[in-house]
Every structure is written in C-alpha cells, then in structure tokens.
C-alpha cells in the first residue's frame, strides 16, 4: 500500500517536471536559435552606425534609438496617467456603477488587439490632431495601449497595502492624501514598478501600433524632434525579414537579438529596482 503511494507520488512529480520542461524548452530554444544565428552580426559598428546600401550593410542605430525614444515617450505619458488613475480608483473612488464600468472597460482594453490601437492612433493622433507620422503620435498610441496594464497592476498593488495603515494614519490626524503619500504609495511601489515595466516591455516590442503612426521604412538619420518619423526595432525587423530581398540572415537574427537584449535588460533593471524598494518595505 505504502509502496504504491510512494510510486504514485514519484510518477506525479515526474509528470509535473516534464510539463515544466515543455513550458521552458520552447523559450530556451527560441533564445538559443536567435543567439546562435545572430551573434555573428553583433559588433560595435552594428549597434552604433547608420544602415546603408538598402539596409543590407551598416548598423541599426536609428532603430535602436527610435525604440528607446518611443519607450521613453510612452513612459512619460502612461506612467503619470496610469498611476494617477490607479490611485483614484483604489483610494478615492467609491464603489458605484460608474467605477465598476470603468474597471470593466480597463480590463477589456487590455484585451484589444494591438493593430486596433494602431488604427486608432492613425485616425486620432496622425490625422485628426495632425501630429503626422511621428514619435509623438507613436508614443501616445503605445501609451494608450499600455495604460490598462499599468492601471490594473498599480491598483492591485495599492489595494494590497493593508487598510490598517490608512486607518492609523487617519487616527493620527493625517488626510487621505497624506496617508497615500507617506505610506500607501511607498509600500505599493515595488508592485507599481512591476506593472509599469511589464507594460513598457510590451510597448517596446510591439509592431502593429507603430506601423501607421511612427515607423519609417528606411530613414538613415536620427530623429531631431518628437514630430519626426523614426525607425524602430520591431518594425525594422519586420521590414528586413519580409520586404528586403537578399537580406543577410545574420543581420535579421542580429536585429532580433538586439531587441531581445533590450527587453531583457529593461527587465533586469526592473527586478533590481523592485528588489531595492522591497527591501525598504517593512511589513
């Protein structure tokens, strides 16, 4: 009896281990393929110069800078609005039909396909507001796409801060905002940062929303103002792998590797920040 139970347990653990492997293996395979095929393209020159000869030669600097600028622009717009909205929903808004509708809308916004955001950005920012195909229009489009993620994770992080802290603060003569500023926000910061980074990572890697709003097919110079067009890594990758005949394979994989590296390093920065703020937290 006991022996068979032990056997079943071992079988169970074995099966679960196998399932984990099935999950992890494709990720490792993707990374491995990209690294193996793309590493030969990576050089300082590749990262720091303009493309030429129809992008078959030279570097991808404008695409890297473009993606960094777009991510920064997205953060500048989405973080204050997103965190502000989350604070309102979690700390001030009463539970009414209206706020429930707002929450439902946020959840649903997160599920909208990114190409729809792209079309909205084209109509709203590029054409109606006459920002043209520009970093500004692209950042705003990406920001709208990112907002639901930031709002819902930040709201969750704020709600996770024990209610008692707010009560204690109030009992010591604190206003609602004083409680938020001195206790709730600092305590929720690790969670908020996680949400912000998750949202920005998604924005950095998206192609569809920037397709009509920012992306230049081939623009071998750096953008000079927010109203300039720009190249961007995901779109550049799409272009060189489908639109340019005779593109060297290692340049395609090299570009993918750079995008992957960028996203990964953002992720690492986020984890470090989160760990730093979590260590400062004490409950």
């Amino acid at each position, binding site marked *: 009896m006991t022996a068979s139970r032990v056997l079943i347990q071992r079988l169970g653990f074995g099966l679960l281990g196998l399932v984990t492997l099935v999950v992890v293996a494709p990720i490792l395979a993707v990374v491995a393929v990209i690294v193996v095929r793309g590493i030969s393209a990576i050089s300082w020159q590749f990262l720091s110069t303009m493309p030429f000869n129809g992008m078959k030669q030279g570097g991808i600097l404008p695409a890297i800078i473009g993606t960094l600028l777009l991510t920064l622009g997205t953060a500048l717009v989405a973080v204050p609005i997103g965190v502000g909205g989350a604070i309102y929903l979690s700390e001030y808004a009463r*539970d009414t039909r209206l706020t429930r509708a707002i929450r439902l809308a946020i959840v649903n916004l997160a599920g909208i396909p990114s190409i729809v955001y792209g079309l909205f950005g084209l109509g709203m920012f590029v054409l109606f507001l006459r920002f043209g195909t520009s970093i500004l229009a692209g950042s705003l489009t990406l920001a709208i796409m990112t907002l639901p993620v930031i709002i819902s994770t930040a709201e969750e992080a704020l709600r996770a801060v024990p209610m008692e802290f707010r009560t204690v603060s109030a*009992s010591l003569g604190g206003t609602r905002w004083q409680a938020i500023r*001195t206790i709730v926000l600092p305590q929720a910061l690790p969670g908020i940062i996680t949400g912000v980074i998750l949202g920005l990572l998604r924005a950095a890697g998206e192609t569809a929303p920037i397709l009509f709003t920012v992306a230049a097919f081939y623009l071998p110079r750096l953008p000079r103002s927010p109203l300039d067009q720009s190249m961007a890594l995901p779109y550049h990758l799409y272009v060189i792998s489908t639109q340019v005949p005779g593109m060297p394979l290692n340049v395609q994989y090299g570009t993918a590797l750079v995008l992957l590296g960028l996203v990964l390093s953002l992720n690492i920065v986020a984890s470090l920040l989160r760990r730093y703020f979590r260590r400062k937290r004490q409950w």
Partner: protein
Amino acid sequence: MERAAARGNGPAAAAGAGPKVRIEGLSYWYDGKQSLNGVTMTIPDRAITVLFGPAGGGKTTLMRLVNRLNDLVDGTRVTGRILLDGDDIYAPGVDITRLRRRVGMVFALPLPLPGTVRENVLYGPRLAGIRNRTRLSEILERSLTQAALWAEVKDRLDAPAQGLSGGQQQRLCIARSLALEPEVLLLDEPTSGLDPISTAKVEESLFELKTQYAVVIVPHSVQQAARVADVAAFFLGGELVECGDGPQVFTSPRNKRTEDYVTGRFG
C-alpha cells in the same frame, strides 16, 4: 451596596475633573443594521473610563465614533450628538484632522507603521507640520517615556519598529498617539495580544496617563476592567446597560444583566 452608597456621588466623583466628552442619544447603523442604540453617557477628564461587555456590544463602534474614524467607512448612519468640551464633533465645518489630533486612538492589534521607532512616534507631529528638530526630539522622548518604553528603546530609535516585541510595539503605538498631546485617549483592547508582564506595563502607563488625559479603554477581560476603571460602562447588544462608578459597577451592579456578566454567568 453600602460601599456604592458611601461613594454615592455617581461617576463624576471618581473623576479628577469635569466632563470631557458628553454622548447624547447616540445611535449608529451600518449597512442598515443598528449596532448602537440611544447611548447617553459622560466621559470625565483625567480618569479612566472603561467600556466593557461581550463582543458585538458596540464598544469599539462607540470609540470609532468619538474620533470620527467611522467616516472612512461607507454606508453608515449616525444620529445623536457627541460633544467634546461642549462642541458637537459632528457639526458641519468641524476640522476632522484636528479632531483626530485631539482624540487619539490605539487599536487592538499593535500596528506599527512601516519605518523606524522614531518615524512612528513622530508621524503625527510631522503631518501636523512640526519641523523643528529640537521640538521633535523633545516630543520623541516625552511620548516614549509616558508610554513606559523610553528605557527599552532609547538606544534603537532608528531600528525598524517591526523588530520590537509585541508588547513594545503596543506601547510604541500608545507613544505615537501621545506624541500629538491628545486630550482624549481611546484604547481598544490594547493588551489583547500581550503576555501578563507586558500587560502589567501597559496598565501601569495607563495610571500615569490618566493624570493628564481622559482615558477611555475597552479592556480585554472583566478582571482588567475592574483593575483600572474609575468609571465603568457595560454594553450589551448596542445598548448601554449600566454606567457608574468603577468599583460600584463591579462589586454591586444595579442591573441584573451587568451582575450576570461581572460574576461570569455569561459572556
């Protein structure tokens, strides 16, 4: 009975000074359910007023109404009046943050805020806008001394408050309220999670505090109630059954239900 008759002058006799808080016909509903029903009583200054009775009697609710902490909760209704030094605290235009500085509260569980011992004690004064360093360090030492904690923490003022023992944390919370020099101090079962030695220390500081403040406490046992009460109020099902001189209520209660509870026949 004789002893009560000898003292005879009612609750005010136990008090060191006149009335501090006057509660008149106070009723309270939450989500349509009534949890206080027409409570009328007086809380004297410079004395310990004990609110006791079985769980769900309305003691904590009453406390949270005296500093308007119940404002944080949606779906409540209050009727009746609470007068602090003769002024209705539910009158329109009352500065709630100022009211809460005048009426301090300590909760059943020790709830240190994130941060150091010093940050905890000075949280209230800093929010009130006190910046002067000398003034702040005076407040720090005075409050911790009053809460009988200074000797134990004076060398670790900048250590995390979470690192203190449960008893120390609770006295820290008392010190945190005292830092605002409140006029009324509400303590909701401040010793419920503490061992007997810590409990004794907290009670000791209560006797110290009542020389300056109006202290209101929900005790965690009838024994504790009897030990500290100058004035005792017995609550049952949201009603104030009996309110009187501490020793009288515990030795010769006038009401049958009070007697049953005090002698341990129920509750």
